[in-house]
């Protein structure tokens, strides 16, 4: 509206030129970012294709992208093979979903309780911070003794990894939340339910989301590595089997599936961020 009246003035042409120029520069920047973002990975892929096709690297271990793609198409077009791949994917996905849900629920709850209740914090945080640096895969043998090889063991390991990540991040979110929120809750004599669910947890939400995102990455690492070590199925098993029979193209297909899991996880993370902490958006 104010733009409109501006254009009626004697400098309308000059203003219009400025507007056009600015819009053009913005458009160019956007185009450049897309071209480079898509183009650079494509360049790397075609370099790989070239050096592999021309025998500059060992084709047995680094098959060309097109060779891998052919293998993928071949596997997916065969009904039996396709079913096998889908079973592997579903096995891994099940462990991720169950392990992540259990771990995140426990981690966030424990983090909030520790943040708001000092005795619990005093009792638990030495343990929490003491055990946190332990690579979770290192205690997989112990987990197997308790939960057995396969689904339960793998899921338990994921749960554990996600628990630590979400608990520690939630705790720091609650401990370092803006003290004004605590003052508001006290000064307005808010009842406990309001304090927790409408003040403290939302105040810690940015940290909680960070914990969830890190937890998701951790979950992916743990599910694949536990499947490497001991499992009958899953994408990790799929990759490891392919490697052992030197079906490298099939192995690369497994890696691609893991990448897709990671991509979906990242998308879920930013979706959660947009939905749950809209006020943090610029």
């Amino acid at each position, binding site marked *: 509206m104010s733009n409109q009246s501006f254009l009626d003035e004697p400098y309308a042409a000059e203003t219009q030129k400025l507007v056009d120029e600015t819009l053009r520069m913005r458009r160019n920047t956007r185009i450049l970012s897309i071209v480079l973002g898509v183009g650079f990975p494509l360049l790397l892929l075609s370099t790989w294709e070239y050096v592999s096709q021309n025998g500059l690297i060992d084709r047995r271990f680094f098959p060309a992208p097109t060779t891998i793609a052919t293998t993928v198409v071949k596997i997916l077009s065969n009904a039996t093979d396709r079913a096998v791949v889908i079973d592997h994917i579903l096995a891994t996905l099940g462990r991720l979903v169950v392990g992540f849900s259990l771990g995140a629920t426990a981690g966030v709850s424990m983090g909030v309780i520790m943040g708001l209740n000092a005795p619990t914090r005093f009792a638990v945080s030495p343990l929490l911070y003491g055990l946190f640096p332990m690579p979770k895969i290192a205690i997989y043998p112990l987990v197997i003794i308790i939960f057995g090889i396969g689904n339960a063991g793998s899921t338990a390991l994921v749960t554990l990894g996600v628990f630590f990540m979400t608990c520690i991040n939630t705790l720091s979110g609650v401990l370092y939340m803006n003290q*004004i929120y605590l003052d*508001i809750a006290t*000064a*307005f*004599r808010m009842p406990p339910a*309001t304090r927790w669910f409408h003040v403290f947890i939302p105040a810690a939400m940015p940290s909680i989301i960070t914990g969830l995102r890190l937890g998701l990455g951790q979950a992916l690492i743990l599910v694949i590595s536990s499947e490497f070590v001991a499992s009958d199925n899953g994408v990790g098993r799929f990759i490891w089997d392919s490697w052992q029979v030197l079906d490298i193209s099939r192995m690369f297909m497994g890696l691609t599936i893991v990448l897709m899991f990671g991509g979906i996880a990242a998308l879920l993370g930013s979706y959660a961020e947009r939905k749950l902490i809209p*006020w943090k958006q610029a």
Partner: protein
Amino acid sequence: MSIVQLDSPALRISDLRKAYLSRDGRVVQAVTSFSVDVVRGERLAILGPSGCGKSTILRILSGLDAQFGGTIDWANDASADAKKQLRSATVFQGESTLPWMTISENLTAGLSGLKLDADTVKRRLDHHLRLVGLSEFASAYPHELSGGMRQRAAIARALATEPLLLLMDEPLAALDAQTRLIMQKELHWIWKQTQSTVVYITHDIEEAISLADRLLVMTARPGRIKAILDVPFGREVEPFERRSSAAFAELQAKVWSMVAEEVGQSLTSSETSKGASA
């Protein structure tokens, strides 16, 4: 609006004392022998140099700090149902809206400690949002509003509890100079509508004279009452009108010299203590 009976105290503060234990184990007297009657419906501004115990008094009056000496007698507290009314509601310095809630949810959260039926809550929300001019923004989130509007929302949240005492802790300090002047005018108008009893904490002498009925000037630490001065304007006189009168400048100069004396004293005393410890 109820008719306010002036001159009856809303609260009587007698010999308020507060000492802290500092990090290195020394006892620091923040406030001592602080006695004042806050009259019903009056606007009392508490002024003083930084570190004089203004925030200490605020935290005690707002119920954030229960460890203090002396007594605070809430005159109407016995008759008021504690479940239906807050003794004091605070407008905090700086951002204090909850960013994950809409404006009306912020107000509802402020009422969550009171036993009010849904109709009353809705009526209070409507009324107080209209009072601060935010009716159209009830379902907006704080980050969608300007700083001045967010502070108006915080004011509405405090007012909606219809407290015995409205506490304001430098509520305009975080705003830019122009918004601050506009908000002073609005505060004056809002208080006229609500007839609230207000304790207004500030370090801004001009703002205090523009808004208050009485000024309470504090000494440097330990905070005592240095003087209580009447502001020589009718309470109906607007901030802008007040500032353009000769009496304003006169009072401002008088208060400034009082505060300057205290600031000077706190500077010399901190220097002597530094010298002593060296």
